[in-house]
């Protein structure tokens, strides 16, 4: 595993982005099964249309998982201390999520150096679907 030089990162620095493939119906079906979230609004177009929508839409927690991957693929899961996400928009089928992050603070907690990182997940048009923050140990 590559160890990023977390201790050298400064406030304002970006972390490596995570580009996801387009959300397909297969993506949503597999996520529904694996997550246990079987809400038909995400997998059954007939149900969605009956609810007045044009189509199904992605689980918010799928994008949250992508944000988790953004952080753990960069810093390593063993350094993840906190993850917070706020759902700000609906991700549609065929949206192409891009997760990005930027260091906003260096601090220490009980002697452990840490980085606070502002994270987001946006689609191909730059519409932000998740805003949040992660805290990682900068060891």
């Amino acid at each position, binding site marked *: 595993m590559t160890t990023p030089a977390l201790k050298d990162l400064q406030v304002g620095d970006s972390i490596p982005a995570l580009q996801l493939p387009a959300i397909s119906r297969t993506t949503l079906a597999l996520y529904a099964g694996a997550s*246990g979230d079987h809400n038909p609004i995400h997998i059954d177009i007939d149900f969605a249309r009956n609810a007045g929508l044009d189509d199904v839409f992605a689980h918010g927690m799928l994008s949250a998982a992508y944000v*988790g991957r953004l952080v753990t693929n960069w810093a390593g899961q063993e350094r993840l201390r906190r993850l917070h996400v706020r759902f700000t928009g609906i991700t549609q089928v065929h949206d192409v999520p891009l997760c990005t992050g930027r260091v906003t603070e260096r601090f220490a907690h009980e002697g452990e150096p840490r980085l606070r990182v502002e994270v987001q997940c946006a689609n191909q048009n730059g519409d932000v679907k998740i805003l949040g923050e992660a805290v990682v140990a900068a060891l």
Partner: protein
Amino acid sequence: MLDRNLIGHALGKRSLTVEEGAVRSYAQAIGETDATCLDASAARDAGHRALRVPPTFLSCLEGRLFQTRALLELARIDLKRLLHAEQSYEYHAQAYAGDVLSYEPKIVDVYDKKGGALEFLVKQTRVTNQDGVHIADLRTALVQRQLAEV
């Protein structure tokens, strides 16, 4: 208006064994590329006792133990007006496939915004493993929206 008397209401403590296949399926479904979440031998080679549980999978396991539907009934929240507003995790130790994780959710806040147009319910859940190790604290904010009059 959601019932503020729910603040402090504990939903009990329930446990489950984290199945290796469930961890792998979740990791595949989110496109995870970290082999320690996908391949048990790779996880062991990296010094882990089993597959590592991806950090956000802790929410899915909670959903298996405590159905969202039951919480909505308790709080009298209408599914059609429900949105997941926020989710957060504080991580204390790694969870692994094969662990027996215990979940203890508690309703910690009920409030509204915009003159009652948005009603929030906040649940916090303590997660521990079979050795009593504190794994994580999960915090979920649900919101019930006013729908336009039909």
